[in-house]
Structure formats: C-alpha cells, structure tokens
C-alpha cells in the first residue's frame, strides 16, 4: 500500500467521524449555517481525496453526498431526519469501503451496485425536494421537467415490459439457449450511456461490443430522430441492449464506472424459445401435434424428435412451423426430460401462438415473465403485465402533468414545442405501461395538434385513453403526484416572457452559461473554505513509532539504573571514591532527563476519553430510535486523559454498558410519564480524574435494578444457593449481574440479553487493572462506576524473594507484609492458615504454587514472611523467603510460547540487567 493511500485512509476515517458528529449536532441545530458549511467541507474534501485513487464506488457516493450537502447549504433542500439517516448510511458505506481497501488494497466490483443505489437515494432526496419547491426555477421550462419525470419513472417500468427477445435472430437465441443450458447465467443488459458521454471521450458502442460473454447485441434510438438539418451528432441518444452469458460479477466489474447506466435482468432460457416465421395459411398440423403428444406421453422422446426432423425436411425453413420444430429439436437435445415444456411447445403448433412460458414456469422471475408477455404482444395484444402500484401512481402523475400542460392556452408559436413534448411523454408512458400498440395513435394525434396549432386533438385522445377518474384516485393515493403535476405546470404559466421567444438553441446556451457562472462561484467559495482547514497544529504519528519510543525509554531507564552499580564497583573494586562520586553526580543528571523524557512520552500516549465517547451520540440515537425510547445523552469530562491502551480497552465495555442501559434501563416514554418522570430519559457519561486513576461513571435515570428479581434469576440459573438467597444484601444482589452467564432479559434481543454482558465487561475492565462497581435504586436509576489506572506503562511492583529468586508482585494486589512466627501457623486439614487481627488467612507457599521444591525459609527468630494479597474479595497469605523494595518497572507482557503461562503477567528488566518476573496473582491459584 502506498504511503499516499495510507494517509488517505487515516484521513478518511477522521472525516467520516467528523461528518457523523456534525450531522448529530445539526440534528439539534438544523439552521446552523456554520455547522452546515463545515459538514459540506468535510464531504467535499473527502470526495476530492478519494478522486486521487481509482475508487469509483466511493467517489460516486461521496459526490452525491456533496451535491446534496451543497443543496442543503444553499437552502435548496431542507435538512431533515431522513436526510441525516441517508447520509449516515452513505458514510457507513464509505467507512466499509475504507476497511475493504485496507484489507484488500482495492474495492471489489460487487460494491458498484450498492454504491449506485446509495448515490441514487441521496440524489432522489435532492430531486424530490427540488421538485416540490420548484417555484423559483423559472428557466426550468415545462419540457425538461416533464422529461425528467418521465425519465425517472421510465427505468422503473421499462425493463419489466420491454424485453424484445423476439427481435433477436433465431440463431443467436439458440446459441444463447445452449450456453445457458450449459450452466452459464443468462442476462439481458440494457446500457443507456449519458447524453454527453461523447465529450468525455467515451465510445459506448465499443464498450458494449466488448462486454464479456455477449451473445447478441442491438442498438435502438431513445427518441425519434429529428430532421437531419437539426441533428446534433454529438448527443448520444442510443441505447445498447445485449444478451450476455458472462457471470454477474464479471459484468459488474466491466461496467463498474457506470453502474447507474446499465440495467441487468436475468433471463430464463425458455423465454428465448420464440418460434417465428410465416404462418403459411394458419395452423393445419393437427396430426403432427396429436402424434407427438402421444409419443411424449409414452415417454418416447426420440420418436418425437424423428417426426420433427422428418417434418422439418419437408417444410420451408422460413415457416413458423419450421422455426418451432427447430426449437423443439433443440429442447429435446438439451433437456429431454422437461416434458411440460416440450408439450407446451408442441401444443403451440396448433395455434401458432408462442408459448407463454411465464405461466408454464411458475418459478420464473416476474421480469422474465413480463418479457415473454411483451414478446407475445405481437400475436396476442393486451397481455402486458399489470404495473406495480407505485409505478401506476407515477404513471398517473405523468399523465396528469400532460393534461395540465395541454389545457394551458397556446400563445406564441414556440409553445407548439410543448405539444410535441407532451406527445413524446405520453408515447413513453404507453411504451412503459405495455400499451406500445397505441403509440402510433398518439403520434398521429400529436401531428394533428401541431398541424392545426391547437392542443385539442391530443387532449381528446388523452381524455379517451386515460380515464381521468381512475388517475385522480391514483393521484390521491400518491400525494406527491399532484404536487409534481402542479410543479410541472407552473413554470409553463410563468415562462411566457420575451426572452423565451429566442430559439431553443440560444436559450439552452444562455442557461448553460448561467450554470457555468454559478459553478465557478461555488468553486471559489470552496477553495476559501479549504484554506480554513489548513494549519492544524497536530501531527499524525503511527502508533508503532510511539511504541518504539516507549521501548527505547524503557531501555534508557534500565541502562541508567546500571550507573549506581558502576559507581559502587568503582569504589569497592577499584577503590576510586572520586570517580564514584562523579558517576553518581552524572547519574542524577541523566536520571532527571530520563524521567522527564518518560513523562513526555507518556503524555504523547495520553488520549482524551472523547475518543471513546464520540461514538455514543450516534449509538444512543440509533438504538433509542430503534427501541422507541427517548434518551438525552449528556457527556461530561470528555477532555480527561488516559493512556491510549486504557482508552482503547474502554471502548467495547462502555458500548456494552450503554446498550444495556438503553435496552434494560430506560422505560418507554409512556411508562416514564406514568411513573412521574419526564418522558425523555437522561443518560450521563462522566469522566473525571482522581489522583492516578480515571473514573468513568455511567448514570441513567431509568427503572433501576430490582434486587429481588436478580436474586430469583440468579437462583434459577444456579449461580447462588438457597442459603445465599436468604443471606445476601440488596447491594450484593445487584452485583450479581457481573456473574458469568447472568441475564435478566426475558427475550434475547439483538441488542442485549444473551447473558454474556456484564461478565465480559468486568473481565475487560479488570484486564487493564480497572475496577467496576454498580449501584442501583429501584425506580430511580443505575450508576456504574469504572475506575481505571491513568497509564499502564509504569507498574509499581514489590519485589519478593523465594528460593533465591526474585519475583515482582503488583502493588495493587498487596494488602500488607507481615512476619508470622511458625508457632502461629496452624494447619486445617492440609491447608496452612493463620489468624491475623482476628481473621483467618489461608496461607500458600509461593514455592509450591510455582512448582519449586524448596520449603519456605524462616528468619533468625523463626518467623515466616507472609505477603498478604487480595484475591477477588478475599485475602490470601503468600509464604515467601524475604521482602525487598518496591520499584517502578515497565512491564512487558509475555510473548510467544510464554504468553500461555497464566502465573506471570509479564517481565521487566532491572537496573543491574537481571530479569524480574512479575506474578499474576489470579493466575497462580
């Protein structure tokens, strides 16, 4: 991975985080222009950066996001919850792409479709908002508006209705059929390049020709051609359609730069079986059909094939019959066991109507079914598939818009163009709704209208063919439909100024200029904003580099600690006290610098807890919305700092706690109201520093924990026995939630309730030497308190000696050190114990725990050294040989094979170069 890409990824994550935060803030202050500008800048910069690399999927989504934000910023689109949701979705997608890039080095082509969908959903938001509020858009005359409406719906409708498979030559269809039967997927691909694509140097024809696995390809014009004199050769008005047998992934990869321009539909191989040809006086092959069906029922497929072959030799190859027979033979060859299909094909010889494979093949996809139906329309009109409700509503909206346009009075001659546009839109509607046979009627009506300069013929036709009542009902179902209609009509009414009498070409170019001007304004604005982001005072450093510094400073500490030994040797071995004193003086200087340096490096590793906290606004928002609860999140002390490892270890447990709190802690708004609380709950996450520890409190004002319920659940799960059930206090009961396998939730939700919750949280916190405690008041709320060390880098350990070896024991665990006379040690069964200040302390020999054979040594007064340590809630005495000093060490966790030894938590280098093993008290027992 190139350094540039690495930097991009790291920056992209920051930007995504920033975008998320800004969106959250905007939710509370939707009118804050500054926030909006900043948000726009984030998206814009991120998009710009992504453009440096070959990630079209990412850039496409970001580009759509940028446009949308630009529209919001300029007040063209209002900020809404839905907008935030979609934008967040899009950013999540970009984040996922970043992960993918990091892992794979590139983005798989499979994401192209997702990317196009997301970009589309963002743009839709913009389009719908703009359509609804198109009052100011006077230049946007009726024609483009109507066309966009038609264009927006056409892709929805077209593929379902128009799969003109019958246009494909029989040989090509047969080849495709064979290929599909050989196991290749069969897809119908329609590729509609952008109108201005020639100016980008694209050659869509070449692109289409080179499509992998293409079996057949065809080209159609999108609209009737204008007279040659008015022709613009450089506006691409061609659609490419092809049949391909390449795998879907390969096609996606091939068209990854233009996923929004292609439509891919799976085609059932049987849909290709469409006999064609001269009917030759109608169906007269009854004998053949009866014979063939009888043979088929008798299972004698080869007889059917023989008869078909014989018949084929006798017949003119151009006949419909011959075509059907050729297909029959092919079917027999490829799938001789598909008797229903064969029977249906033979039956079709009776009527000379193509088989409706859709009815036959129940499992076929609707698209294919519709395709077959469309193919069949030539023979049997009116079998087009009904439109989906949404599509019907869109259709009604378009038709209503045309009606509104036609009802406007005609003034200037140029307004005749409106009639032509309406006619074209209606023709499109007809094609889309599968009534293609009526298109020529519209065209005639349009021509009449144009000829007589009145909208009458066209509106008559419209009234006749599209019943207004049915539409208005549909429009009522679809509220925006009428809005679209009026929006479409309004610009027409206003656009009657003298400027519009200019020819179409002039008008276009002038509006184009205006657009250019606006564009350049925006660009300058953007540049100024970019500059504001520069001059950041922080440096981004890879963590590995800081870890290296940490290691080096550790070594310096060890090396400098060797100096006192050296001074001692100078004095005792070589007898030069002067030198010894100078070494000691020098040591003091080095010591001071080393300590400052260590402190400095610690500071670098310090991170504010906001690193963890920043994810909560989004988390709380998403979860509370999902659960239907109202929760206000309050974050306090976000700038409290702690070591990076601690902060990172805090992340997952905190998320878990917050989820738990949202899921179990807070009541639904009605319940809260009934309990006399404000309907919106408050979740407070507060970080504070207490001496050398960070304390994080998570407080909710929810329903709290009922100790009785906890006790009962714990008893049911066998976590406590009956006597404990009676004995334990409420506080202790509440703490049972930390026991492994505990869950109070009746139902396992996708948020929590699997009983791995608090137990895992506690373990994670304890791993970084933290502690967790819980207080809860039924009905009032719950308070969780996490206490963590500021830094894990330096550990304070006590050195003890046992069997002539030294071991470190973390000071956190040490309760006290005592010397116990041998006489006071009793043995109960096989365990040694002693009584210390009225409490029985079990004694364990360190040697025995570590598998050393030597017995513990006593001192001159026959006393044994006992190191009392804390083990969970109890105290245990460790028998050692002697106590030594306490030291600050840099603990290195055990690596490699040694990592599996639970008895040690790590090792450290001592000043004299020896290695100190640090015991893990929990792991010993």
């Amino acid at each position, binding site marked *: 991975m190139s350094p540039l890409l690495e930097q991009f990824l790291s920056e992209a994550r920051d930007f995504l985080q920033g975008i998320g935060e800004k969106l959250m803030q905007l939710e509370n202050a939707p009118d804050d222009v500054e926030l909006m500008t900043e948000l726009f800048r984030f998206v814009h910069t991120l998009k710009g950066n992504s453009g440096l690399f070959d990630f079209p999927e990412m850039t496409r989504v970001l580009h759509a996001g940028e446009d949308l934000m630009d529209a919001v910023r300029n007040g063209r689109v209002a900020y809404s919850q839905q907008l935030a949701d979609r934008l967040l979705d899009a950013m999540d997608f970009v984040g996922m792409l970043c992960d993918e890039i990091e892992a794979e080095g590139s983005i798989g082509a499979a994401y192209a479709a997702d990317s196009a969908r997301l970009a589309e959903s963002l743009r839709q938001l913009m389009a719908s908002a703009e359509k609804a509020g198109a009052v100011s858009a006077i230049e946007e005359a009726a024609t483009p508006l109507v066309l966009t409406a038609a264009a927006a719906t056409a892709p929805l409708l077209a593929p379902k209705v128009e799969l003109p498979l019958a246009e494909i030559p029989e040989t090509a269809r047969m080849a495709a059929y064979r290929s599909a039967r050989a196991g290749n997927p069969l897809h119908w691909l329609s590729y509609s390049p952008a109108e201005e694509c020639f100016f980008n140097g694209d050659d869509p024809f070449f692109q289409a*020709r080179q499509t992998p696995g*293409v079996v057949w*390809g065809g080209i159609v014009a999108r609209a009737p051609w204008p007279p*040659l*004199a008015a022709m613009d*050769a450089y506006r*691409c008005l061609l659609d490419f359609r092809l049949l391909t047998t390449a795998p879907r992934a390969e096609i996606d990869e091939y068209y990854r730069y233009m996923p929004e321009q292609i439509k891919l539909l799976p085609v059932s191989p049987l849909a290709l079986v469409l006999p064609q040809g001269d009917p030759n006086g109608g169906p007269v092959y009854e004998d053949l059909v009866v014979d063939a069906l009888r043979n088929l029922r008798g299972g004698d497929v080869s007889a059917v094939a023989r008869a078909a072959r014989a018949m084929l030799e006798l017949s003119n190859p151009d006949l419909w019959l011959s075509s059907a027979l050729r297909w029959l033979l092919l079917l027999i060859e490829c799938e001789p066991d598909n008797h229903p299909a064969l029977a249906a094909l033979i039956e079709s010889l009776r009527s000379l109507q193509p088989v409706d494979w859709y009815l036959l093949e129940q499992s076929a996809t609707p698209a294919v079914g519709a395709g077959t139906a469309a193919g069949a329309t030539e023979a049997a009109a009116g079998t087009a598939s009904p439109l989906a409700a949404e599509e019907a509503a869109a259709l009604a909206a378009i038709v209503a818009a045309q009606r509104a346009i036609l009802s406007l009075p005609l003034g200037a001659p140029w307004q005749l163009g409106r009639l032509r546009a309406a006619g074209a839109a209606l023709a499109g509607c007809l094609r889309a709704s599968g009534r293609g046979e009526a298109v020529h009627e519209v065209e005639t009506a349009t021509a009449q209208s144009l000829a007589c300069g009145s909208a009458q013929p066209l509106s008559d036709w419209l009234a006749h063919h599209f019943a207004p009542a049915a539409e208005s009902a549909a429009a009522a179902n679809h509220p925006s439909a009428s809005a679209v209609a009026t929006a479409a009509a309004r610009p027409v009414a206003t656009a009657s100024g003298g400027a519009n009498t200019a020819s179409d070409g002039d008008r276009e170019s002038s509006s184009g200029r205006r657009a250019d001007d606006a564009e350049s304004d925006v660009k300058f604005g953007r540049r100024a904003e970019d500059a504001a982001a520069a001059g950041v005072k922080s440096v981004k450093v890879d963590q590995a580099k800081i870890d290296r510094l940490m290691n080096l400073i550790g070594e310096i500490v060890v090396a400098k600690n060797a100096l006192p030994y050296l001074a001692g040797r100078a004095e005792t071995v070589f007898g030069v006290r002067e030198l010894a004193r100078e070494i000691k003086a020098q040591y003091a200087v080095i010591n001071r610098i080393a300590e400052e340096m260590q402190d400095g490096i610690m500071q670098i590793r310090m991170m504010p807890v906001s690193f963890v906290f920043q994810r909560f606004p989004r988390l709380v928002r998403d979860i509370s919305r999902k659960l239907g609860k109202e929760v206000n999140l309050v974050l306090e002390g976000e700038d409290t700092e702690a070591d990076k490892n601690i902060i990172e270890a805090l992340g997952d447990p905190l998320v878990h706690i917050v989820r738990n709190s949202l899921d179990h802690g807070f009541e639904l708004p009605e319940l809260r109201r009934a309990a006399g609380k404000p309907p919106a709950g408050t979740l407070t996450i507060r970080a504070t520093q207490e001496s050398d520890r960070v304390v994080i409190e998570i407080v909710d004002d929810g329903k709290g924990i009922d100790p009785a319920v906890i006790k009962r659940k714990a008893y049911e799960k066998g976590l406590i026995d009956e006597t404990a059930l009676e004995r334990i206090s409420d506080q202790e009961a509440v703490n049972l939630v930390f026991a492994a396998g505990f869950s109070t939730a009746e139902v396992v939700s996708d948020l929590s309730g699997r009983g791995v919750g608090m137990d895992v949280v506690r373990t994670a916190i304890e791993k970084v030497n933290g502690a967790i405690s819980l207080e809860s008041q039924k009905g009032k709320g719950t308070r969780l308190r996490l206490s963590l060390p500021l830094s894990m880098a330096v550990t304070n350990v006590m050195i003890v000696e046992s069997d002539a070896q030294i071991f470190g024991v973390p000071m956190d665990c040490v309760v006290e050190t005592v010397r116990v006379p041998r006489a006071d040690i009793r043995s109960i069964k096989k365990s040694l114990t002693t009584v210390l200040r009225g409490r029985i302390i079990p004694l364990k020999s360190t040697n025995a725990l570590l598998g050393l054979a030597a017995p513990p040594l006593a001192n001159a007064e026959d006393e044994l050294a006992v190191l009392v340590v804390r083990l969970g809630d109890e105290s245990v005495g460790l028998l050692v040989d002697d106590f030594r000093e306490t030291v600050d060490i840099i603990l290195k966790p055990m690596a490699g094979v040694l990592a599996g030894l639970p008895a040690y938590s790590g090792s450290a280098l001592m000043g004299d170069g020896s290695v100190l093993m640090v015991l893990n008290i929990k792991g010993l027992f």
Partner: protein
Amino acid sequence: MPIEFRKNQALFTEVVSVEDAEGLLEWLQKKPGARIDLSACMHLHPANLQVLMAASVAIVAWPADAAFTGWLRSALAAPP
C-alpha cells in the same frame, strides 16, 4: 480519412472516429438518399451510427465481422 466520400456513396474503412461524424452529417445533409458501404469497416463511433440512423441511409454492404454486423443491423436494417 476513414470515410471515403464518392459521388453518391460513402465508403467506410477501418475505424471511423468521433471526429468523422461532423463531416458525415454535412455530407448526408447535402446528399439525401446516399448509400453506404461498410464492408471495410472495423468499428465506428456511435456518433456516426446516430447520423446514419437519423438519415435512414441505405446500406449496400455490411462489414465482414458477423457480430459487428449484427449490432449494426439491429440499428440500421429496419429504418423507423
């Protein structure tokens, strides 16, 4: 020049590029009913194809490449 304009017939050769569409359009505007020979054509930019489609020209010879011909026929064989 990939397009060779003769009296009433244009001969397409090799790869006809996007720049040729302009000239083709002008020529066809002057010569309605002109005929096109594609037999030596390997590929043509869709801008040219559009012009041919709009002009509903008669094709006197199709390219040698069958697949290419298939594409072109779908666009040109059945004038609207």
